[in-house]
């Protein structure tokens, strides 16, 4: 599914540069649910952004679903992002002047799918996250948990191979966090590959594998017994 070899990334800071990722090796199989952990500045978000093609590595190999991801043109990167990846952000990143169903349908628009079909598919995914009744509401009329569920529906809409989540519960209270996690777990149960960044131990334990980063290197990579989130809901 995903294979990363000797990945390096540094950011220029004034005259010097900050070496954020110092040779990362990792591979993820289909159906896995991986948590990337680490304190702030450990490089976990940078890694996720590179995997998500939102950012580019300096050196190293990254192969996604058999395709080498390197020196992509903007246009090609856009096509790959649209086809392979679904994003879930800490701050939801919904477009504020579009209602829930329009937000969910947006990736389908960029796939060139006809409007009628887009709406149908978006409805299906909204129903899946239990928000069909809120289809016509703008993001500002939704609660945090609802917004994140719309964002998840949007991430699922294009039927991506890999779901990337950057602190998906970071802006939510504990109860809502558990609801969202329960839903993400159910997606994984259906076979979706999920990669998430978190700094919360209990959220990480709801995944099947934990990768710990410190100062740009992988400290630990272990499989864990998944804690089901339903029990807290």
């Amino acid at each position, binding site marked *: 599914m995903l294979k990363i070899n000797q990945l390096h990334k540094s950011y220029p800071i004034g005259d010097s540069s900050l070496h954020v990722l110092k040779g990362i090796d990792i591979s993820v199989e289909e159906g896995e649910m991986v948590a990337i952990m680490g304190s702030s500045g450990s490089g976990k978000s940078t890694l996720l952004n590179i995997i998500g093609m939102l950012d580019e590595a300096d050196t190293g190999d990254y192969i996604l679903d058999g395709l080498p991801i390197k020196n992509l043109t*903007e246009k090609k990167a*856009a096509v790959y*992002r649209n086809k392979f990846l679904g*994003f879930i952000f800490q701050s939801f*990143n919904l477009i504020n002047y*579009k209602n829930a169903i329009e937000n969910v349908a947006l990736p389908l628009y960029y796939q060139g799918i006809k409007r009628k079909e887009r709406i149908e598919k978006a409805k299906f995914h909204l129903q899946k996250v239990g928000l069909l009744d809120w289809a016509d509401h703008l993001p500002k009329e939704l609660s945090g948990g609802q917004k994140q569920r719309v964002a998840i529906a949007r991430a699922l809409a294009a039927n991506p191979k890999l779901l990337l989540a950057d602190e998906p519960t970071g802006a939510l209270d504990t109860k809502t966090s558990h609801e969202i996690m329960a839903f993400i777990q159910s997606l994984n149960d259906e076979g979706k590959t999920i990669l998430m960044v978190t700094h919360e131990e209990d959220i990480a334990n709801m995944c099947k594998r934990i990768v710990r980063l410190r100062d740009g290197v992988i400290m630990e990579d272990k499989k864990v017994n998944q804690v089901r989130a339903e029990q807290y809901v």
Partner: protein
Amino acid sequence: MFDIDLWREIFQSINMNRTRSLLSGFTVAFAILLFAILFGIANGLQNTFEEAFVDDADNAIFIRSGLTTKANKGYQAGRKIQFENEDYEFVKEEFGDDIEYITSRVYKNLNASYKNEQNTYDIRAVHPDHQFLEKTLVKEGRYLNFNDIQNNTKVVVVGRMVETDLYKTVPALGKYINLNGIQYKIVGVFEDEGSEYEERRIYMPVTTAQKIYGNNDYVDEISLTYNPEMNSDQALAFGNKIQAKLKERFSVAPSDQRAIRIWNMAQGTKQVDIMTSSLTVIILIIGFGTLIAGIVGISNIMIFIVKERTKEIGIRKALGASPRSIVAIILIESIIITAIAGYVGLLIGVAVLELVGPSLEVYFIKDPGVSNTLVFGATLTLIIAGTIAGYVPAKKASRIKPIVALRND
């Protein structure tokens, strides 16, 4: 290719971000509005100028004679110079190539009567060309012709007010008019755009007046129009040449200012030309300035819009938007807003000119208005400027990494 979904995206964006759309539209509308009003007022001023000189032919030269003020070639000062028919012929012969129309004038002031009505009128005894010099409009009948001059016929052409004064409601054409005891047949009635005063005149053949009222060849004034293709400098030189030739003919000292007097319309035309052309320059500067202000306004708004939408651009890119679609969505939106706002500004500007226009005549602004071509041109310029101004930041925004755009809060 027409992409309905793209347009749907754009109209949603315009509609849902009304404040932004209205503000940027307002800038454009205001620039076009100012542009239209300024140009309209300027055109109004120009109309006033042009109208002030519409009465008489604006390429006319009038030549009169007087007393000499200087002794010359054995003649004493104070000699009276009198033009005669020969002098009219001389000018016509000598300068025929550059002359458009030419006429003699003999002035009389006679008592006119018809039945019980009577009044005193200015009589001008002239050649047929006079009609074009004075821009006399023959309302009924005809003007004087060559035959009248040849045969000293006793015919007159009277002004509209003469008809009203003496004939009341009866048509004057074909009737006789008594001028100091002599009967003339009215062969024409005329109007003049100048004033009612000019319509209280009577024209008769110059030869008739010479024969009846003095039995001489005397001419009070020679009037002519020069070739209209001459510019005002050439026309002034032409007038001076005629004056010099006539001074020579009458043995008048070249420096004598009184004996042969010339009044050249080119003198006034030149001043009006200078006035209008400086006005045009001022207008162009103002119009250009307004446009520049509009362009700067648009550019700022475009930069602001792109800045404001950076995060949205990041989201769209994360969801798979190509750089081209990002540029398209921003640019087309700005073009639509500019076009609509420009049209609104144009409409308001034209409406303001229509409404306020008539009351501005006191300020020498007549029929203010702008040509549609001009305003469409200005709107188009703004659209193009807005497109270029928007393209640079839009292109830049489409290139930034989505992660940078997403971080932008």
